[in-house]
């Protein structure tokens, strides 16, 4: 079936078998391998992308369900000129170690900051509870998200 999406602002489409998940479509049909397959059943969060403004496990969403939707993946965060504040802060803090949880983690964090620009530590923990990380103990990730929020607020203020 033909599935058309807006991915990271570009319109993309592919003819996929109907049972294709959004994750598979992104990775295998659109060449966007940022979102990862870690468990394939919605437990680990490595496949997290934003669909029409909310984060979802793309391993559980059929591609057909996302037809006509606006999808943001990790590849859509930076521009040709600068990193997203989350990417910058994650790098500065050494918040990612093996990095496999990173794309999903950053997308969940972005989804949080989009709706709650000044989250508390608890709110960050709550927002990231669907993204398992085995390396970091989440500590530096949480620090980075909070600082990225502050940075985005300052940027907003100076605009």
């Amino acid at each position, binding site marked *: *079936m*033909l599935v058309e999406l807006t991915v990271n602002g570009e319109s993309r489409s592919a003819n996929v078998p109907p049972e294709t998940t959004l994750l598979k479509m992104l990775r295998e049909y659109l060449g966007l391998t940022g979102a990862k397959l870690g468990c394939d059943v919605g*437990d680990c969060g490595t496949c997290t992308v934003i669909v029409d403004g909310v984060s979802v496990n793309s391993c559980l969403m059929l591609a057909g369900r996302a037809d006509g939707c606006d999808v943001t993946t990790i590849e859509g965060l*930076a521009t040709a000129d600068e990193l997203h504040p989350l990417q910058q802060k994650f790098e500065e803090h050494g918040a990612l170690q093996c990095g496999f949880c990173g794309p999903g983690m950053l997308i969940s964090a972005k989804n949080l900051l989009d709706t709650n620009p000044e989250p508390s530590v608890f709110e960050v923990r709550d927002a990231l509870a669907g993204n398992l990380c085995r390396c970091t103990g989440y500590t530096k990730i949480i620090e980075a998200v909070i600082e990225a929020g502050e940075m985005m607020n300052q940027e907003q203020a100076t605009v």
Partner: protein
Amino acid sequence: MATRVKDVQTNVEDLVTAREARAPSRQPLAVPIDQPVTFPLELPESEARLRTPAVGQRATRPDGRLHGLGQTQYIDDITFPHMLHAKILRSEYAHARIVSIDTSEAEKMPGVIATLTGAEVPENSFGPTYQDQPILAYPIARHRGDGVAAVAATTEQFALDALEKIRVEYEPLPAVFDPLEALEDDSPKVHGGDTNIYTSKVIKKGDVEAGLAASDHVFERRFSTQMVEHVPLEPHATIASWDGNGRVSIWSSLGRITLGREDLARTLQMPQSRIRLIGTVVGGNFGGKNEITNEPIVALLSRKSRRPVKAIYSRGDEFVSSTIRHPFIMDYTTGVDNEGRILARKIRLVLDGGAYCSWTGTTIGKGSILAPGPYNIDNVLVEAYAVYTNKTTTGAMRGFGAPQVCFAYESQMDDMADALGIDPLEIRLRNGFSENSLSPTGQSLQSVALKESLTQAADRFRWKEWQA
């Protein structure tokens, strides 16, 4: 809101509109946009990376930036033209003799290009200490995670479908699951012979019985720990690709490529010079990716099919087939004087090794040496045994036995402190190692910072305020 309608092959057209019937403008784009990732090239470098001296700097990681951009290429992100996908069938029994394996029906399935069984592996054994583990079990399966056959097909789903068509005839054998039962004479023997004990260790210093006899108080307790999985977020992953010079390139999530290549050369019975092993960025290791797993299988399927073959473990494979942490059963007997000074410590450790040895040699070694704890004790006896059981293979995992014995020795330290009315910090400072202390193996220790760590941690925690 306009209702979106789509279907592929429905016979209720009055209710749904076929997806393909939509406006011609909605044809797939002929050329995909060739800019999957936008990213800046020129960025202010983190200052710590630019500073000298380099040591001591909080330098950021170049790979960290790629992780954040989604640009890091893990093995599952790599594809090659005509690449096949491999899946492995696992044993239906915890212990069984494989009477026969019939892959003929699987080979007829759509998309299937090659199959493999243990009998086809040139040298079907591996292991970092003992080579007691098969690449694909044959003729004996010793736990339910043992692979018994593999399929390479054009898609993962075709490979999975084909696995269901493989017929394996098993003759179930008696199995043993409990490590203490496995120690008994009449227990089923996982690897034959007359014992399941496959490695043991003794650490002996002074006279432990005399030390216990001279003690004012003797504390005894049994502690035990569980089986734990590493849970790397990236499951084990491999791609193998053969070329026309008879040389194979293997991309692997293995953390030890030099020794991995040795093992591959041995199992494949080919010169090391014809094997290229590439360790890509590993999505989490923690000790679980320290030996070959599916690399020889994928290499052999690639050789048979003359195509690149990729194998990614499912999360389930990751649990049942890769190694996990050794459960320990730990009997601690410790004698102290009235001031809480440890005079003697006698320890017996039983390690549940699962079906194969893997890194048990290192685990039992470190576990035994570390078991008495970081304390000055003149009289020590540690006896440790590792036993086979028909369960998931235990191997290297962050700490090699140390978290298990630390749980035991530190729990007992607090038991003793409590019974003697001594502050837990004080009893540790009283017994703890300092510079030139002698370890349980009689080694004189240098750069010992135990007491510094104790006092700094207590200060940061405001331990004394809490205890007051």
